[in-house]
């Protein structure tokens, strides 16, 4: 394709990086926010602002809630394409009940799956989930959106675009391109190590953008590679569904064989049976973990084949003290409480796999590493954004000569994915605080409205970036950068003030109480505002000198600025 290897790598880096960089910006930014998804949830759902709780009693608290759980209308609608004929009104046979928590969760996530008699695939089940207060079993309203863990977090791996799983595929391909961009980026640069220490902020924009691009790319290279790669491994089952398509027979054979080896029944017996005390089973599991010298917090509790003779209870240890998510599972016969099986130590491959995925998902307790993840994610954003700026700076004069609008488009999309994206996130938080607790009848659910606000602000920011982009075609800066920086500098503190007005939790309060989930997000919003203000002022000064120079050298295509 090209004369040499380096040129073909440069071509790949430039053009694939340009096209998919816009997706990767969102992946890195919302991935960075996901590190503190539970904390963002606390900010967005003020009723959940209390300390993390252990797994509550199953017998007294969870069981009555599970027994009353039923799929919501939305769950049923979503399932209907996987069933023959109309869906049942009521679901009587629970396949699975589960409760999941981490050391950062005050609220408890529970889910239940039910048999669907007319499902197309006989194994298929309809699932529904709820969020409850583990102290008293109060159920949080369906329409309150946990913005961190239910919106920003899935946004970073699916773009919240679920039609035919297309969002997953776009992000997956972009991750592959991230890996490609890292390898090709290293190949392009001969002076790899010198670039680790090179940043010339006072040179021309093109030079300093490239320095920053190389610096953030090279310093965080292992981080970028690791996260793009493990992101792919986590969703390998979606990207290469080999064991559920081509090798499904082999997979089914393995499952039945495994059920024989483990003694955990694969299917229901069809004989009704009661459920013994699950709390006693939890106590026994904790006794066995303690014997092995392990911390005894329950992370995941699941009942399979609920109410059947073959039913069993699986209890897993929370992933606070190691990289793997949950583990050391102990399984009990549900009707008697006798131990059926203790999971054996993990194999080498399983260890490697859980280390890779666990280090990405980071459910263990390590606040320093958590912050390093945020920095790594933001470094990724800086790397990609400076890539766009370098692209525009390098070509804008050439495009002016050709009368091309390319630089204008790229620059407007860069504005959209840098300041526009942050504006959308801040706008969503503001919407979250401004929407009334109970909405008038006939309105869409509250959480949906918050999502519309997010996408609406983002589209507006994009329209604004394009509308203001004319100067780029004359090799000057798009004033939308300045406008949106100042908009951020104004709106981010508005979110902080609204949090104060609507909940009473102002910074002096939350900091003195040491309530960091809320104090942290408020402080982060103020930092965003400060940085946006500094950047906006700097850029405005630059546009002013730029237009002054431009008037002085009217008609000259060789406009330079310092």
């Amino acid at each position: 394709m090209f004369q040499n290897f380096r040129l073909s790598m440069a071509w790949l880096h430039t053009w694939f990086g340009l096209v998919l960089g816009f997706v990767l910006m969102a992946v890195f930014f919302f991935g960075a926010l996901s590190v503190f998804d539970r904390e963002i949830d606390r900010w967005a759902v003020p009723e959940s602002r209390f300390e993390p709780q252990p797994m509550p009693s199953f017998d007294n608290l969870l069981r009555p809630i599970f027994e009353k759980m039923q799929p919501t209308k939305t769950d049923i609608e979503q399932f209907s394409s996987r069933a023959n004929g109309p869906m049942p009104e009521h679901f009587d046979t629970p396949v699975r009940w589960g409760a999941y928590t981490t050391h950062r969760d005050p609220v408890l996530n529970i889910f239940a799956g039910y048999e669907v008699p007319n499902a197309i695939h006989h194994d298929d089940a309809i699932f529904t989930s709820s969020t409850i207060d583990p102290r008293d079993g109060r159920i949080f309203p369906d329409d309150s959106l946990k913005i961190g863990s239910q919106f920003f977090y899935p946004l970073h791996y699916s773009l919240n675009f679920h039609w035919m799983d297309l969002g997953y595929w776009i992000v997956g391909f972009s991750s592959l391109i991230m890996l490609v961009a890292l390898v090709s980026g290293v190949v392009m640069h001969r002076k790899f190590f010198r670039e680790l220490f090179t940043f010339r902020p006072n040179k021309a924009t093109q030079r300093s953008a490239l320095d920053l691009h190389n610096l953030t790319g090279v310093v965080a290279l292992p981080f970028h590679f690791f996260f793009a790669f493990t992101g792919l491994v986590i969703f390998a089952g979606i990207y290469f569904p080999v064991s559920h398509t081509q090798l499904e027979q082999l997979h089914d054979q393995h499952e039945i064989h495994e059920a024989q080896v483990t003694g955990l029944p694969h299917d229901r017996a069809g004989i009704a049976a009661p459920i013994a005390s699950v709390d006693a089973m939890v106590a026994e599991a904790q006794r066995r973990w303690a014997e092995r010298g392990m911390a005894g917090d329950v992370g995941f509790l699941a009942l399979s084949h609920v109410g059947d003779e073959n039913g069993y209870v699986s209890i897993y240890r929370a992933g606070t003290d190691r990289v793997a998510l949950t583990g050391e599972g102990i399984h009990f016969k549900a009707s008697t409480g006798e131990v059926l099986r203790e999971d054996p130590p993990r194999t080498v491959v399983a260890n490697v796999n859980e280390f890779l995925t666990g280090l990405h998902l980071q459910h263990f307790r390590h606040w320093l590493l958590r912050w390093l993840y945020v920095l790594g994610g933001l470094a990724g954003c800086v790397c990609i954004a400076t890539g766009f700026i370098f692209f525009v700076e390098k070509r804008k004069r050439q495009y002016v000569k050709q009368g091309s609008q390319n630089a204008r488009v790229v620059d407007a999309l860069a504005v959209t994915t840098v300041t526009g994206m942050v504006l959308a996130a801040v706008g969503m938080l503001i919407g979250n605080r401004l929407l009334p607790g109970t909405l008038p009848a006939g309105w869409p659910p509250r959480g949906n409205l918050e999502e519309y606000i997010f996408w609406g602000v983002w589209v507006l920011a994009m329209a604004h970036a394009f509308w203001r982009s004319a100067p780029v075609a004359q090799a000057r800066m798009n004033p939308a950068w300045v406008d949106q920086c100042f908009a951020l500098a104004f709106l981010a503190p508005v979110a902080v003030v609204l949090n104060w007005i609507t909940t009473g939790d102002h910074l002096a309060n939350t900091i003195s109480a040491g309530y960091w989930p809320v104090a942290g997000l408020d402080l982060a919003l103020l930092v965003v505002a400060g940085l946006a203000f500094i950047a906006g002022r700097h850029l405005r000064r630059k546009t002013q000198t730029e237009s002054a120079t431009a008037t002085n050298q009217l008609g000259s295509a060789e406009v330079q600025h310092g």
Partner: protein
Amino acid sequence: MSLKSSSSSPNLTPAHILGRIGAGILGGYVFVWGFIALSLAGLYAVGMPFHDAEAFGSIIGFLLYLVVFLWAFAAQSMGKVWLVLVGSGGLMTAAAALIQHSLV
């Protein structure tokens, strides 16, 4: 990396670029599919636990995808890229099917 140096390549037509992109994405996909299927079926057949074989296949598979994707753009002959990726991907997929057939 500039347009100038790349446009001096004689064969950089849109059709050729699309051919390369197709080879990297689709050819690479067929190849990695074959690799994951064969390593899953093959390793399971020789006694590795099912999910271990699956995890092994996807961890190595994505690294291979990266390598063959880069190769699709760096190789001199595009025809060879298509042939090698789709050919060996197809062969590995078929081998996996045969192993499954003999096990089930």
